[in-house]
């Protein structure tokens, strides 16, 4: 006769938690839902996790009926809590969950936030070229059409341009000095990140040189903006078309500026950040924040405190469907 034994509650709970967690992680990866929490780089690690948990569950089976007087269950909550939170309703983060801050194209890549030698570059024509470099040059560029009067809040552009409040420039040149630029040029990071190789011009779609148009597909949002911020000059005057949610924030942007942005995740959901190119339009007030739009505009290169960046002078804004998913630059 087989020995009848009582169920070991501890082993049962441990096994149960492992099986459920394993299944849940595998499901998240299989359905691509893990991308709401971590980047695609984690995929193999998550499969590994699911496999290990399954092995543990199997290894625990023989002890399922091993008698033990004192059993515990509190430690199982270290899996039960993540399981509960994964299963219980919560929405993926969108822009309204994030305090406003955003990364201009290239800030993640560092490349665009500095000019080649750290010196202010001459303005591309126009009256702005002769204006004093007081941080308002970009506005002057457009002064023939529009009036810009608001002062830039002193802290806003510090964030992007690494100027501190005393106007002293932080020493970014270190990165140059130590060969950062050259390495960028050698495409070390690009090969890895986007796999578009040496003749990168051909790799991005949507470029129509004859019509001077760039139609950015949702899949290439990051790559295109990174390209434009890294080397804006060839594309000045091009008509650009892109889709994003409307980001406008008086703390970060001028009243006539908004960003059609997408969310970028570089490590995990904790560092989610809106990312995009500043667009200028006098009708910004009519745009609803966080709504999805497709924007068309003309690329102009502007300059803030010596750092050049492309912006789009908007010609058309139309409502668009929401683009699912985040951008994973690395």
């Amino acid at each position, binding site marked *: 006769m087989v020995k*009848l034994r009582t169920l070991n*509650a*501890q082993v*049962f709970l*441990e096994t149960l938690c492992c099986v459920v967690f394993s299944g849940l992680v595998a499901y*998240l990866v299989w359905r691509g839902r893990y991308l*709401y*929490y971590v980047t695609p*780089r*984690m995929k193999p690690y998550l499969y*590994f*996790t699911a496999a*290990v948990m399954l092995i*543990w569950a199997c290894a*625990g089976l*023989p002890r399922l009926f091993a*008698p033990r*007087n*004192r*059993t515990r*269950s509190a*430690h*199982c909550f*270290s899996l*039960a809590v*993540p399981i*509960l*939170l*994964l299963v219980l*309703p919560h929405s993926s*983060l969108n822009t309204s*969950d*994030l*305090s406003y*801050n955003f990364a201009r194209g290239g*800030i993640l890549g560092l490349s665009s936030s*500095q000019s080649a030698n750290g010196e202010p570059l001459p303005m591309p024509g126009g009256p702005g070229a002769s204006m004093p470099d007081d941080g308002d040059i970009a506005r002057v560029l457009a002064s023939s059409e529009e009036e810009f009067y608001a002062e830039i809040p002193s802290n806003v552009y*510090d*964030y*992007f341009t*690494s100027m*501190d*409040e005393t106007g002293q420039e*932080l020493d*970014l040149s*270190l*990165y140059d000095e*130590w*060969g*950062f630029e050259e*390495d*960028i040029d*050698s495409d*070390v*990071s690009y090969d890895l990140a986007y796999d578009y190789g040496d003749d990168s011009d051909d790799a991005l779609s949507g470029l129509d040189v004859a019509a001077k148009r760039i139609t950015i597909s949702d899949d290439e949002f990051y790559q295109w903006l990174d390209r434009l911020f890294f080397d804006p000059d060839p594309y000045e005057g091009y008509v650009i078309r892109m889709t994003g949610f409307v980001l406008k924030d008086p703390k970060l942007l001028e009243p006539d500026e908004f960003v059609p942005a997408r969310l970028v995740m*570089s*490590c*995990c959901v904790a*560092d989610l*950040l809106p990312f995009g190119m500043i667009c200028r339009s006098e009708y910004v007030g009519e745009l609803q924040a966080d709504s999805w739009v497709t924007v068309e505009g003309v690329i102009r290169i502007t300059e803030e405190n010596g750092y050049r960046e492309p912006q789009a002078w908007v010609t058309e804004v139309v409502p668009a469907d929401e683009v699912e998913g985040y951008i994973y630059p690395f």
Partner: protein
Amino acid sequence: MPGGRIPVFVVTGFLDSGKTTLLNDLLNRGDWGEISILVAQFESGEVDFHSKNGNCENIVFPKKMLDTQPEEIVRRLAERLADREYDEIWIEWNGVAALSRLYDIVLHRDLRKICEISRIAHVVDAGRLEPLISGSGGALLDQIGNSDFAVVRDSPRIKEDARLEAVRLLRAVNPGIRICGANSYNDIHRSLFRKKRSQLVVFSILTVLMALSYLAAKPLLEANGVPINKVVNVFLGITLQAVPFLLIGVHLSAAIEIFVDKAAIERRFPKTVGAGMAAAVAAGFCLPVCDCASIPIFRSLLRKGVPLPVAITFLMSAPVTNPVVILSTYYAFGGNLRIVAGRVFLGVVSAAVIGLLFALGGGKSSILKGGAFERISCSCGCWEDAAPASFSGRLGLFFRHAQTEFFSAAGYLIVGIFISSLLQSAGGDIFSFTGGGAGLAASMAVMMAAGFVLSLCSSSDAVVARSFASQFPAGAVMAFLVFGPMMDIKNFMMLSYGFTRSFILKLSAAAFLVSFSAVFAFSSIVGW
């Protein structure tokens, strides 16, 4: 006992710990005067059991019979129980036999319908526990770990410290065990007869309650502007990132525990501290682990007798210097070899200095939570089969050890992650710190604080560090890269599962001061 099985009360404890004395004290009291009791002794010590009221019968089984003829014990017990109706059975268990053998007897088909184990008590002589635990094998740990409560016997000659130490040891082996003084009969009585709740029921109720309170609280919190959705997302994000690496860590740790011979480590490990540290750095370089993984390894290295300064050097340097981290730093900073070299160099230097600090100032006091018990055994509750010879047996033990360590560390890990995600969601956007205007020291402090709060996995923190690079001087970014993997909220919490609070605080302070000084000095020299 009509309608149910006879309750079996088991008294465990090492030889001469006072088990028979406890039985004499308890069963001759008025509470037990009216019922008939069978006392089965598996050990005969200096004191004999004697019943004043004549309501207890006793039967003695020598250890030899337990070892060679367990069937005979079952037969005799069954015979006794058939003869007469008992209300309670009390067993004085042998101090050197694993409880699984008692289960084999009580759960034998001839007995399990008649009686069932109700409570297990463990009798401890406070002054003798520590040497016993260090000196004796797994049976004692097995008995302590399976007991519902402990009866701590002390005498006037025992100092209060020894009593506290005994209680600490008992709790290390059996967290949450009830402790009774040998003379507090009310405590003992309550421990014997209080209702025992099923873990399954408790766990299910708590789980459902948690789910319901989450569902109920979510709308309320959201209405009041608490970003609960963000907290949940950030929590899950960091958890999904940390768990795989913790899994790697506990398996490496279990491998060291199960497959590496302590004597081999003592024989082969470099004798001098310097060589040991070099070996630690080399080991860190070879193991593709991040900070989540290095903590369990650190613990098992210490248990295998690796000197503390060397183990600390490993703990502090491995998350910074291993190939995965080096590669991810290389790519994140666009192939900038100086950043990579700076990170590795400063990480190794800081780790070595922190190790040396502990070599110079470190007392001999135990930093492992369980003290003596930790040094001789893992806490995985697998004492009864402590050293299986077969490979498959060891493999099973390997997974079991890894799993147990995972569960104990993961509890602290998720608490740490939860705190981190609360701070990140509540404290505004941590990425909006502006480094401008502040001096290098201040921006370094800000970046190190950010690293501490963010609790990023060291395998991917370089990417985030790079996004700071345009707002902070390179020295501050470097401080983030060096200090973050050494110590952050999640590491701080995770160390709590195996180490004393004072050690963790010392280690954190040392990590902060040393890495700060190292990066600051280096930055000044190279002009960052």
